[in-house]
């Protein structure tokens, strides 16, 4: 059964969301960032539904975005934002950071469930593709700046992913990438990759 972390500061709303979700999923509840981080450390969470306006700053998306970054950097799970923060900048920041979906309150429960189903489907498909050696790598780039920065960013992300997957084994990485070991060393130096950074993020 999927375990969903539901982070929402409104107790009444959280209870209704929980009731709607708990028939199909195991639901963990948090009312603030601290509790959410605590639960993430103790349980195997597979997906998160997250409000951005969390205490002590309920009227800004800062706390929610902070938690979003933490989840994506440390757990790499799909995160669905369900928030009253309708500002374009908050949505942009969340999507840019890697949130799977951005739902604006009041959203229908069907919408929330549909988004969760899609997130699970995407995650499972990505896993299958990874098993086949096809990894989905996302990166942000300004289209107007031409091909060179996009190429470099793609290169950087692919090499970083392979290094992570091989636990920084240069020989295996070179084999997977189909390049010489010297080239892998060159990229490690060029992009400033360090084993400890990769280990920390893993």
């Amino acid at each position, binding site marked *: 059964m999927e375990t969903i972390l539901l982070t929402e500061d409104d107790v009444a709303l959280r209870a209704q969301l929980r009731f*709607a979700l708990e028939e199909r999923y195991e639901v963990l509840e948090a009312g603030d960032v601290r509790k959410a981080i605590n639960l993430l450390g103790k349980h195997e969470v597979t997906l998160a539904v997250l409000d951005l306006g969390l205490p002590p700053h309920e009227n800004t998306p800062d706390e929610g975005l902070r938690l979003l970054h933490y989840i994506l950097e440390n757990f790499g799970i799909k995160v669905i934002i369900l928030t009253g923060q309708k500002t374009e900048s908050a949505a942009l920041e969340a999507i840019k950071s890697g949130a799977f979906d951005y739902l604006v309150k009041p959203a229908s429960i069907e919408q929330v469930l549909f988004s969760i189903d899609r997130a699970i489907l995407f995650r499972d498909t990505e896993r299958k593709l990874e098993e086949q050696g096809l990894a989905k790598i996302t990166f942000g780039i300004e289209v107007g700046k031409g091909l060179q920065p996009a190429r470099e960013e793609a290169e950087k992300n692919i090499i970083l992913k392979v290094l992570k997957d091989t636990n920084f084994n240069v020989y295996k990485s070179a084999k997977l990438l189909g390049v010489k070991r010297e080239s892998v060393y060159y990229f490690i130096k060029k992009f400033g990759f360090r084993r400890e950074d990769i280990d920390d993020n893993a």
Partner: protein
Amino acid sequence: MITLRLIQSMYMLVIVSGLMVLVILLYLRYLTNRAFKVQLKMVEANSECNYDIGLFLPRVRELVKKAEIDDVFYDITYGEKVLSKPGPGHRRVITRKVTRPDYSIGLGIVTVSPRGYQRYIYMIIFETLFLLIEMDLLMKIKVANDALYNFSRLQTFLLHDVKNVTQFIKGLLYNIARIGGADREHRFVEYLRESAPALSVRTDKILATLEMGSEKEGDEGEIEKVDVLATIRELFELYGMNGQASGEGSVFVNRHKLVTVFDNIIKNMHEKSMNEPELECHASVREEGETVTTVIYDTGSPIKDMDRMFEPFFTTKKSGLGIGLFQAKHVVKKFGGNMTVANTDRGVEFTVTLMKGAPPAVIVPDQTL
């Protein structure tokens, strides 16, 4: 003889010259006094017009006439408003135009004789008038900007709560239609029971915010006996505060309003505890004669801007609205009580003193009919 005659004629000349200087000095004094009087009248008129240039400018013409200024013309723009009175195309004018991002002022006066000392008098009056107009405009723009800013903050604050309530209702409607078996039904009721206090506090807060400043005298809403200690304990539980509440005391007030008062205090402490996880929050309630005094204190860091704590729209939080404590004090005062805050040795301490009050009069139906 000739010398004597010369001295006699010089003597007369000195006397005449002295008299002339005296007359000139008196005339200058008259001109200066007249200018000062006109200045004073303009300042007074501006104040009487409540610093509204739309009302002030039509009165200026009559005032400056006393200082031999024939006319005043202007072209003032601020926001979407334009105030304009075209100039006469006269040669004897003093004019100035200033354009700033939020407004522009074009001002001119038509003088009778712009020469010599009189010109300085005109300039003094002109500068005063220009200053008054610019001050009125700046004041108007600042008040409008502040009001818009505070309105938008208030809207953000209310939107957050209203969106959550609406989302709650959407969830409720969805769940009601899908409750299923007895076990789910039981859990649904249990969740609703858990949610009720939070929902009640939230809706009370929305109402209190919307009603703030529009309450009518004598319209206190439904009066009932409220157990102060129980109210505080409920809020401690709602916010998951570490701490104890003790004592006893009840007051006859509007329950929703009283909940808003304590909610604003305890919520502040709860938010503070996010950055100070060791913070505890304690409360004591005691009855003294006709009053009930509640002391709520936290064990956290002191407040820096203590003097401004109850000032509307003042906040130390990045996302705060700054009306919570203002609203709390406002309600307590309406109850005929008092609310204070202080940094003490043990932490930040709020003291709320309320009159015990009396139960509302029961209307007995007339049995004679």
